[in-house]
Structure formats: C-alpha cells, structure tokens
C-alpha cells in the first residue's frame, strides 16, 4: 500500500505524517507536491496539518484551489482512503469532500494539549480500536470548532459518520463534541486531533498508532469496510 503525503506551501506536519508511516509503521510513503496533478500509483492520500498558504484567509480556503486538488477529489470519489488532520481536515471541508466547517476556537486562542476522545470503530480508519474506546490524542489548532447545520449534524449521527468525539472536555466549542468525521461513503476522514503525534512511547503516547494500522489493515481486506 502506497501513501501520498500532500505538501502545500505552509504545511508543517507533513514530516510528522511521513515519519509515522515510514519510520514507525514501515509503510511505503512519498511526499507529493501541491503542484502535481495526478495521484496515480498511490493507494491512500494523507493531508497534513500546518498553515497552508499561511491560513491568512479562512483556513484551507486557498489550498482547495491547488493543482493537486482535482486529483484528490477524483481519488476520494473513487472510494480510496483520504485522511486529513488539522489543516488537512479544514482543507477537506473547504474542498467539499466533508460536510460542515471549522470555526475559530471559542477561546479565540490556539490550543496545544492532549485531549480525551471517544472512538467509533465502525470506520475503515478506526477498525483497530474498540468501539467507544476512550483514547488520548494531542490537538494543536486555533480553528477547530466544528460547525454544521442541524440537518447535516443529524445525517452525521444517523449515518454513523462521527469517528471521534471529545470525551471529557470540549476544547474548542465543536457541535456534538465532534473531533473527526467521515464522508457518507466512509473513505474520507477529517479530524482536528493529531494521531501522527501519538505513535511512539518515547514521546509519551501511542494512541494514534492504530489509526494508521487500521488504514493498512483496510488494504488487506476486501469488501465494504464501514
């Protein structure tokens, strides 16, 4: 299984995703520039955190016009796994691959800390977790307050699209305590927490590792994952 880590100008967690996959998971992974137009040969797309184009406009609003985006949309529409963390989540909502939007944290401040999350394991990205398992993952964002209208929120709940919820405290004001969602088909996941920062005991947390293992597992099984 070959992973593409997309690099936008201003991406800065690209190395973190790369290292988590390459060094920790021993997966086949390659950086792909925002200037590319094709994702041929890749089996999964990973969109990193950071400040694409400085995030001087709405976070992710410029990245969605990058050269690579049509290829990512096509990739997602083909049912292949697309994962976005933090700025990656913001880009996925801006690109319309995920519903809703990420607003400024209700504290109006950037927040970097570890938070508790409740996992829904019925997605291809979370299969290796127990259902309703409480895990801890770092967050690091200023604009992570998930918002969608009532109708969309109901759909997310009904279709079981909410992959992660803030379990103890809601650090940013997200509706329904949403920390991460999939699309309806289940092959696109966006989440504000950073699983790639939690894959090594040396750094104090391995709770994110199973997310990457789940994606790798997904490539080995056939059939509908969700």
């Amino acid at each position: 299984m070959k992973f593409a880590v997309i690099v936008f100008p201003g991406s800065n967690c690209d190395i973190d995703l790369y290292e988590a996959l390459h060094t920790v998971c021993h997966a086949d992974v390659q950086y792909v520039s925002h200037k590319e137009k094709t994702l041929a040969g890749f089996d999964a797309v990973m969109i990193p955190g950071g400040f694409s184009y400085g995030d001087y406009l709405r976070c992710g609003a410029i990245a969605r016009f990058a050269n690579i985006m049509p290829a990512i949309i096509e990739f997602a529409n083909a049912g292949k796994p697309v994962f976005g963390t933090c700025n990656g989540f913001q880009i996925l909502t801006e690109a319309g691959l995920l519903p809703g939007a990420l607003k400024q944290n209700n504290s109006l401040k950037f927040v970097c800390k570890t938070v508790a999350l409740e996992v829904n394991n019925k997605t291809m990205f979370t299969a290796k977790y127990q259902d309703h398992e409480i895990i801890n993952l770092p967050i690091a964002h200023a604009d992570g307050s998930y918002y969608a209208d009532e109708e969309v929120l109901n759909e997310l709940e009904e279709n079981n699209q909410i992959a992660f919820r803030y379990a103890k405290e809601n650090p940013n004001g997200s509706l329904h305590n949403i920390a991460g969602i999939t699309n309806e088909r289940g092959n696109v996941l966006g989440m504000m927490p950073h699983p790639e920062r939690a894959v090594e005991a040396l750094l104090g947390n391995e709770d994110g590792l199973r997310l990457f293992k789940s994606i790798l597992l997904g490539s080995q099984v056939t059939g509908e994952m969700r």
Partner: protein
Amino acid sequence: MSTEMTPQEIKEQKPYLDWGLTQKEYEYISEKLLGRLPNYTETGLFSVMWSEHCSYKKSKPALRLFPNKNERVLQGPGEGAGIVDIGDNQAVVFKAESHNHPSAVEPYEGAATGVGGILRDIFSMGARPIASLDSLHFGEINQARTKYLINEVVAGIGGYGNCMGIPTVAGETTFDECYTGNPLVNAMSVGLMDQKDMQKGRAVGVGNAVMYVGAKTGRDGIHGATFASADFADDRETQRSAVQVGDPFMEKLLMEACLELTSAHAEWLVGIQDMGAAGIVSSSCEMASKAKSGMELTLDYVPQRESNMSAYEIMLSESQERMLLCVRKGHEEDVKAIFKDYDLEAVVIGRVTEGHRYLLKHQGKIVTDIPVSSLTDDVLEEPSEQKIPQHIIDAENSSNWKPQIDNPTEVLNRILQQATIASKESFTQTYDSQVRTSTVVGPGSDAGVIRVRGTKKALAMTTDGNGRFVYLNPEIGGKIAVIEACANIISSGGLPLAMTDCLNYGDPNDPEVYWELYQSVKGMTAACNVFNTPVISGNVSLYNENNGKAIFPTPMVGMVGLIKNVAYTIPSFVQAEGDIIYLIGETKADYSGSELQKMLTGNISGSLNDVDLIEISNNMQKLLSAMQQGYVASCHDLSEGGLAVALAETTFKTDLGLSVKMALNSAELFSETPGRFVVTVSPDKKESFEKVMEGNIKEIGQVTKTPQLKMKLSDNEIEVAVEEMQQLWEEAIPCLMKSKD
C-alpha cells in the same frame, strides 16, 4: 532624492544626533575615516552600523571576557549563530536575541518578528530549526497595560512559531515591577545540522553575485537598530513605525528554499546571511567585511513594495523575511530556479569586487562610496565609566533580612500563587510544542528535550535569567544565572554543552549600569569556565529603561545540553511509590532576592552569599553520571521558592504524594541557595546511587501513594493535599489575567 539634505546641510543641521550618532563619532567619520563629509545615505549607514545593536561598541570590553571556545565549539560568536559538535558528524546551532523595544511598542509584531529573526539566524547557518524557547519578563500583573502586553507577546510568539512549524518547548516568564514599561522579550532558537552543511555569512570571490531573496523591501522598521539602542521616553507611541511586521508563511517558504540550497546545492553558494537589524546594509557590509572583499550594489534591483523609496530607505529598511546570498558566478539562474519553485524572488543586486570599497548605486548615481571596514571595524569604542551602585554598598554594610515563618503551610500555598512561580500553562498551551514529533519533554519542565531522529541522542534546552540576584550583586548573580541554566540541563539528564545569552541592561552611559554589565559578565564568565560552557553566540540589549529608571540587570542564559541516550531522559516529577527522595547541595540562609522576600516584604534587598562553583560542578557531574547509569527516577532543580516549591512541583500532575523529614526550619524551606536538586531513586538503585554520589546527598523521605505533601521540619509541619496546592498553582495566573484592576 532631491529633498535630501546635502553633506553641508547635514553638518549644520545635525540630523545624525537623532539617528544615534554622537557629535564625536560624526567628526571622526568625516575627518579621520572619509576625509570628507558623508552624504545623507552614508550618514544613515553609519548611524545604524555604529549603533550598539550592530557594533557592540559599549559592551565589547565586557563581552571579551567570555570564553568562546572549547573542544566542541565549531563556530563561536560573529556569525548568525554558534555551532557545537554533538558527534556523528552532526552539530547543534543556537542563538538568542532580544526584541524588547519593539515588543514594548507593538507587542504582537515585536514578539513575532523576534521569533522570525532568530529562526533566520539558525537557517542561515545551514541548520534546520528544531525548537524555540523564550524568556519573558513583565511588570506585575496588576495593570491593564501589562495584561495587554502579556497577551499580545504570547500571541505573537505562538502566531509566528506555530505557523513556521517549530515547536516552542521551554522558556521562562517572570514578573517584577521594573519591567512594567519595558518588558523583556528574548527568543532563542535551536537548530540541527550535518556538519558538512555549515554555512558562513561571507562574500568572497571577485565577480560572485550578491543575491537578494525573500520578501520585498518596504519602509517598515527603518532605524530599528538605532531604536533598540536608545531609551524610551513616554513618546514611544510615536515610534511605532520603527517596528517591523512579520509574515511567518513567507518565512516558512524562505526557510525551505534556503535549506534546499544549503543541503543540496552548497557548491553554488559562497555565503548566506539573514537581513536582520539594519537590513541590507548590515548583512551586505558584514559579509564583505568578514571576507575582506569589496562590494558593489545597485539598489534599483532591490525588490521594493513601495514606490519612490530613497537609497537611505532601501538600505535601512528592516522589512522581515529577507536573506542575502553570495552565489558563485554562473549559478545565479540555478539559485533563482530553486526560489522560483517556492514562488520566491531571487534577484542579483550586486557583485563582489576587488579592493575594499562599499559602493552603492541608485538611479544612475553613486550614493555611497566608503571603505567596507569603516562601517564594521572602525567603530569608535568608548571606554565606559563604572561605579558601584549605592544600594550595593549600603547592603554590604547592613544585615540581611531574615524571615520569620509561623505557618509554613500558608506560606507555601501563597508562594505557589506568585506569578513568577505559578503554572504558565495558560501561556505555553497556546504554543505548538509538539510539531515535528520529536518533543520528548515539552513546556513546564526544567528543560525542553528534543530527540535527534536516527540516533539515540537528544538535546536538552533551557532559558534562565534572574534579574533580582543580578541587581543585588551582579557578579554573584551572573554566576547564579549560569548555574541555574546548567542545573536545568542536568536535571533532564543532559551534559551542558555551551550557552548563548541576551544581555538586557539599562543605559550603559550610566556608570552604575555599566558596572552591573561588566560585573555580571565577569560572574557569568567564571561560571562558564568552571562548567565548560563557552558562550557561542548572543545579543546585547541596552537602554532598557522607562522614564529614566533602569530595569534589573537581566542577563538571560540560553543553554543546550546533550543527552547521550534519550532513554535516560530524566523527568522532573516523581515516578513511583516508595522511591527515595534525596536533597543534593547545602541549604544556606539565602533569602536576599528570593521569592519569599518579595512576597513577604514587597521588595528585594540585601547582599548575596557567594557560591562555590567547584562544589556545585562536582555535584552536577556525579549526578549526571548516576543518571547516565540509570539510577535516577526523577530530578528537579531548586530555584524560585526553594525546596518547598520544588518538592510541591515534583508531585503535580501525578497521582502520588511525598513524605519528607528534614533538619531544616520553615524559613530554610524557602531559601534559594543555588545549585541544589531534589532527586528520587528507586529503592533497588539506592546503593548504586549513593555510591556514585559519594555522600554529597541527604536522604529526606519517600514518595507516597497518598497524594499528600507531608513535611516534618525542625520547627513545624506541613500536611496538605497535592490536589489543593496544584489547583492554587494552576489557577493563579488565569485568575490574575482575568481580574479587573
């Protein structure tokens, strides 16, 4: 420009006095260096290059005391940053810089561009920045203005560092009235490199290109260096235009492009330097001066974001996110292509020339024609007068304050809520401390620790400055600053390698201020020599005054240490029930300048006891050896608030408590004798640990399962729930920041 004064008018109207040049300097330049009157542009160049910020003309005699070499130092002061060998053909690169004056005027941009500037210094050496630190000193949190400064400075540091993707992993924040109008904002950056990628800021080789890369030049920050070298009056609001505005996204692109150039195409590059203070002029003439070259620049080629900029404005602008390269002739297009890939401009603005002239052309005219060295090497060094401040003489002739403590529990609870001691999490939580996934220990510990990927090594790093001690006795205070930094590195299991500094003082023309500067550098030097921590880079910030009153003399020490095996990184908090607690180092009656004194008397006073550097160094070496052999479970150094605060802090955020019994009395519990540590050791390592330490330790108790802090003292007892103390400690600053004044 036609509106510029002629050389004769300059002589008569003396605008240079406002730009920071003295009459004596102007005359020396005209009569001795040039043999003619300098024109408008030239006068501007001299005024910034001869400012303290660029020339160190005042502080040089003191700076010469510092050791700057040892067996590990690859690059000492004089370049963008210092470089130290860490084995495996790798090196660590670091430097600190102050942005005090800009932060006082426009705190968000002042702090942000402080971070941006120090990061450029690191990647100009060919190193990738891996961590940022800060050292912040504000007035008491009791005025709306101070709260505003704190909020904006913290937001600026986070805003720039978070966007750049460099984790902010350690630092310090203290509060004292003397910093009210003149906060200290010192930023430090640490980078990692392969030794083969080392770069220097030099322009050598006749015909090689001088290339400008990065953001366009605007009118921002003109005379920033001069501004940093003058004291504040209450008209600081009118100085706003001297503060630069940061664009971290631009800098991220610039960093990636420069690192691609230095790591993959070093053969195209002759030299590289950040355009920091005094912009194009300082970077270009320093690069020429270091290589003993001449240089010719055509200013019309400088990318400009405003129209009709004069030569004076182009040369003195401090627009951010710009670098100057010296590129081997014939590779100009190759370099342009790299920067183009990041959508950045790279423009040839001149060439290295024969001889030693610094020639600037603008709109078809020669606007500057002077020897390079006149800007960089010929600065008039003026001997400064020194005088012992009266308060120090008075203190030596009177007895020191001694505390009387009847209720140590109450004192402990109160001292944990003092802003300088209380948890800084509400600030550090707004910094991304984990990006690049190498942060082994983040904010809130004695030192930040970053692992070096692909090796077993890690780097420990800290910033420390305690103006109170330096104010009471600059020489001893200088020693203590270095001891404290070493102690923080040792506590995390690192061997102190070298240090950088920001020397923050008042107006050096005041003989008492100059005496403080000289004496404290003397004290720091003595400690550096004992600890083998040379000073490899640094920065001087003078004129830190507000309406004539100087700040506490506050040298900030930034230190980096090497942890040989990251598995032996030592946490600062207790690990397991039953672990034995030891106190390392003698506790003396050290209350002058202590947090206890400030809290109980509202002020600091008295004289300091000298420190035994050799004894402290011996203890540190033994402790490090015990750590490297795996005998130490946790270690925390004692600083503000003494043993009482250190013990309390070791239990915070754990489920554990501790029970100790000591011959010390309630007052001694809060004494701040430097160079002490609290260490916990698992019972099965007890014997081995004690053997390594050779009796220089006191066993004082053990870690308990009950989350309570129990201390039996010679005159009293403390028994309090950890949770209760932790809550006071955590909530103090958020509460102060919210309170209305």
